[in-house]
């Protein structure tokens, strides 16, 4: 984004020349953005740093407590559980969810006809409101033998599976639904990236005698390298903040096996009807954000050479 040369500094800028030069109308046009971003983005971001160092009950003035909130969060026995559950969710989401859109997009990119039908179908779950999807899948996950999924498993002689009612089945169940709901969006991103693969690369590979597998391995996938790296880290950042699935499916249960970090933040801030512990909630939010920032920085450092080439 190169901007045109900025207007040369005038020797003297009185308010009236500023207004006549369009400075005022520029500011008026900027007003919506300044107000909305200022009040609902920049100020809350600054405020989260301030609040993490304070104890407040919204009635009296806030009290500065230094790093007490951070210490309280770190001392919470639930933190370890929530951290592990979040990591587990993110890992499972990578294992289940990362290859699916990639394989779909690569196969779909080679379609000569009907790409629109395929992409529409793939994107359909993305437009289903997440709350509706979870409520529907909650019924699918009915643990009785006559539940939807258990009926289907019964056809091939498997199950019944306890799904959401079992500590070891609950988390994978959430991840499967989350993957169903999100994969289509990634497919569309990959397809958009694949459109820009220069056809000459395939032609050249063919002249060199490459078969289909080698073309996919040596042309298609390398051309997707950058976008694959980005979607990987975006997916991790997204899944580390998972809230809706554990909240609506299991509310953290059974036996806290699906309590994630965001559920803990929510619990600190809004779980208690007598007034939330906003200091602890922001402290945990900031620690999570900091962790994600470090993770992405390290990740991009490690993969820099790979993505540059």
């Amino acid at each position: 984004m190169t901007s045109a040369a900025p207007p040369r500094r005038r020797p003297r800028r009185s308010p009236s020349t500023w207004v006549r030069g369009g400075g005022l109308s520029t500011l008026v046009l900027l007003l919506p953005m300044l107000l909305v971003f200022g009040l609902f983005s920049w100020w809350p971001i600054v405020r989260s740093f301030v609040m993490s160092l304070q104890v407040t009950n919204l009635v009296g003035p806030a009290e500065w407590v230094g790093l007490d909130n951070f210490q309280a969060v770190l001392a919470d026995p639930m933190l370890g559980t929530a951290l592990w559950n979040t990591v587990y969710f993110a890992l499972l989401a990578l294992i289940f969810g990362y290859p699916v859109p990639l394989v779909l997009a690569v196969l779909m990119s080679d379609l000569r006809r009907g790409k629109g039908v395929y992409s529409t179908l793939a994107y359909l779950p993305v437009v289903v409101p997440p709350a509706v999807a979870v409520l529907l899948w909650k019924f699918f996950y009915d643990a009785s033998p006559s539940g939807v999924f258990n009926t289907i498993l019964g056809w091939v002689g498997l199950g019944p599976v306890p799904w959401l009612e079992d500590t070891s089945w609950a988390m994978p169940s959430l991840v499967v639904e989350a993957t169903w709901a999100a994969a289509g969006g990634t497919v569309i991103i990959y397809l958009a990236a694949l459109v820009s693969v220069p056809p000459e690369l395939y032609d050249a590979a063919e002249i060199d005698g490459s078969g289909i597998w080698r073309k996919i391995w040596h042309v298609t996938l390398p051309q997707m390298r950058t976008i694959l790296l980005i979607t990987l880290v975006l997916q991790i950042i997204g899944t580390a903040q998972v809230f809706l699935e554990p909240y609506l499916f299991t509310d953290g249960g059974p036996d806290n096996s699906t309590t994630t970090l965001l559920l803990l933040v929510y619990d600190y801030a809004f779980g208690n009807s007598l007034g939330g512990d906003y200091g602890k909630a922001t402290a945990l939010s900031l620690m999570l954000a900091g962790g994600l920032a470090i993770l992405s920085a390290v990740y991009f450092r490690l993969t820099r050479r790979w993505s540059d080439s």
Partner: protein
Amino acid sequence: MSLDAPSRPAEVAAGTAAAAEAAATGSRRAARRARRTESSRGFTSAHDLRRPRVLWTRRLVNALVLVGLVVVALGPLLWLAKAAITPTQDTLRNPMAFFPNGTDWANLKTAWVDLDLGLYFVNTVVIALGSWLTQMVVATTGGYVLAIVRPRYGRVLYGLVLATLFVPTVVLLVPLYLTVLDVPFVHVSLLNTFWGAFLPAGASAFNVVLVKRFLDNLPREIIEAARVDGAGPFRLFVSIVLPMSRPILGVVSVFAVLAAWKDFLWPLLVLPDPLMQPLSVRLPTLAPKTELDVFLAALLLSTAVPIVFFLVFSRFFLRGGGLGGAVKG
């Protein structure tokens, strides 16, 4: 799936040309060839496809992908449509059977009337439209100033907007809630007002970046010509820039409306009054106190609108979907 056609104009054009050619020559192969040359090639070449093994493997794989997509992506929704008009006992005893004891169309009406779905529907629509309008105003005016007017402080401002892209939403959750409880300077609470949903939605850096980047690429000559003709900043914005940015505004619009329709956590926090809540927030609380068949009908009705919306505007969704990666990269 009639939406295939409008979603890809290039293919439609090719398709009609091919159809015309096919009609003229009476050959389906000519039609196929015409279409093939139009689309960019994938990893299989015409040469590959002359080998029967490759051709049939490819056909098989494509068919399997299609079947898989229909079963996995569409299947749950088809099941929901079936269950919405099936009596509760049938759905509970044998969820995969097709209407063992007939249909129960009254579920849909019961859901709409008894659950007061109409009210939550209106709330959802109001939230979606208001969020859309706020995002439009912010993104167009902001993008216009940053890309076209370019004041000296523009770069700093753009940097500040970009920076918010890198702040995870979790950081905003609590402080944003407290800000809405007591908005700085004016000291009003937006709790239980739709403004509490509209205004924070407007602070989407993503939209500003998309619009700004689009406007960056508008031909400067047109802007200069309008300026020479005496158009002031407002006139330039309304008469030149807005009409020219229609393509990007379409993309921003459909994603804004869909995001507002899908949102759950934020409306849950700022709209505790059940009479103000959108469908997403209201449905989970209705679940335990509603009969199953009626509840499933309610789920179907709540999904129908976004699905129809998507099918109508699929062109924007499927084309614009790739923009996310482009911008965040």
